[in-house]
């Protein structure tokens, strides 16, 4: 499996992402945002976390115009798989590859800690190794993770099983750290080939570092 990991000025999770996919046996390549095309025969593009362009204007707002994003849009529109983690999720919503938007956390604080998540839908390649209602423990680290979508959009997300993950406590009861609509932590597009989540599965790859629940998440992509 070949994974391309995007790097913008200000991205800081690209090498964690490389570590995670290498651990799973994938071949990885970091792609600088000035590139105009993606490598051939890749199986997945990851828009890694960080603070692209310093989060100026809005998180992800400027990155969406980087040259590589044109290729990513084309790749996604042709059914290619794309995963946006944290700032990558923000970039994908700004680029309109995913619905909704990510606002400042309701508390206005930057939140950095482990958080539990409940799997809401697994009829997609990303979470197919997990079961619905599984509770997993993955770090979150964001200032703008407050997912917003209007009522009509939310209804559509549920109707198509696009709500993937919700923030909960260890028992699976809703526990919302940032004010997200319905405590949503991750979604996908209607076609189920573009995925976005605020939590960092690539930081949950080693028990030694608190959790390896990210393995089961990212492993899903290997079965492609």
């Amino acid at each position, binding site marked *: 499996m070949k994974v391309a990991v995007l790097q913008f000025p200000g991205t800081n999770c690209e090498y964690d992402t490389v570590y995670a996919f290498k651990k799973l046996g994938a071949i990885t390549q970091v792609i600088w945002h000035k590139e105009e095309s993606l490598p051939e025969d890749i199986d997945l593009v990851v828009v890694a976390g960080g603070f692209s362009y310093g989060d100026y204007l809005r998180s992800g707002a400027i990155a969406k115009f980087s040259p590589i994003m044109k290729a990513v849009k084309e790749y996604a529109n042709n059914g290619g798989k794309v995963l946006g983690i944290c700032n990558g999720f923000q970039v994908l919503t700004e680029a309109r590859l995913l619905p909704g938007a990510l*606002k400042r956390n*309701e508390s206005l604080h930057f939140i950095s800690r482990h958080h539990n998540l409940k799997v809401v839908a697994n009829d997609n390649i990303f979470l197919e190794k997990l079961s619905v209602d599984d509770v997993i423990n993955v770090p979150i680290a964001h200032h703008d993770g407050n997912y917003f979508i209007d009522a009509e959009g939310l209804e559509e997300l549920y109707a198509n099983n696009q709500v993937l993950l919700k923030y909960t406590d260890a028992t699976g009861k809703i526990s919302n750290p940032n004010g997200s609509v319905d405590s949503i932590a991750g979604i996908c597009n209607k076609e189920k080939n573009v995925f976005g989540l605020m939590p960092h599965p690539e930081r949950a790859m080693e028990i030694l570092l608190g959790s390896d629940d990210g393995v089961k998440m990212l492993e899903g992509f290997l079965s492609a």
Partner: protein
Amino acid sequence: MTAIVNISLKNGVLDSQGKAVHHALDSLHFEGIKDVRVGKQIILKIDSDDHDKVRADVTQMCEDLLANTVIEDYDIELIK
């Protein structure tokens, strides 16, 4: 010509910063404040006197980049 773009969260989208500022003003005992909204202002100096064209251009800038119309509204004021 100068274009002043005011951007604010749409009605119905919770403005956490506005709420926090409202609480702070309350605790300073300023009375009668019904609501506080926090937005941002972007000022563009544009080398053109063509009112209609500048308005059209700045509108496009707002749609493409300056505002995220999923959550934000914008208005444009032009000054000669």
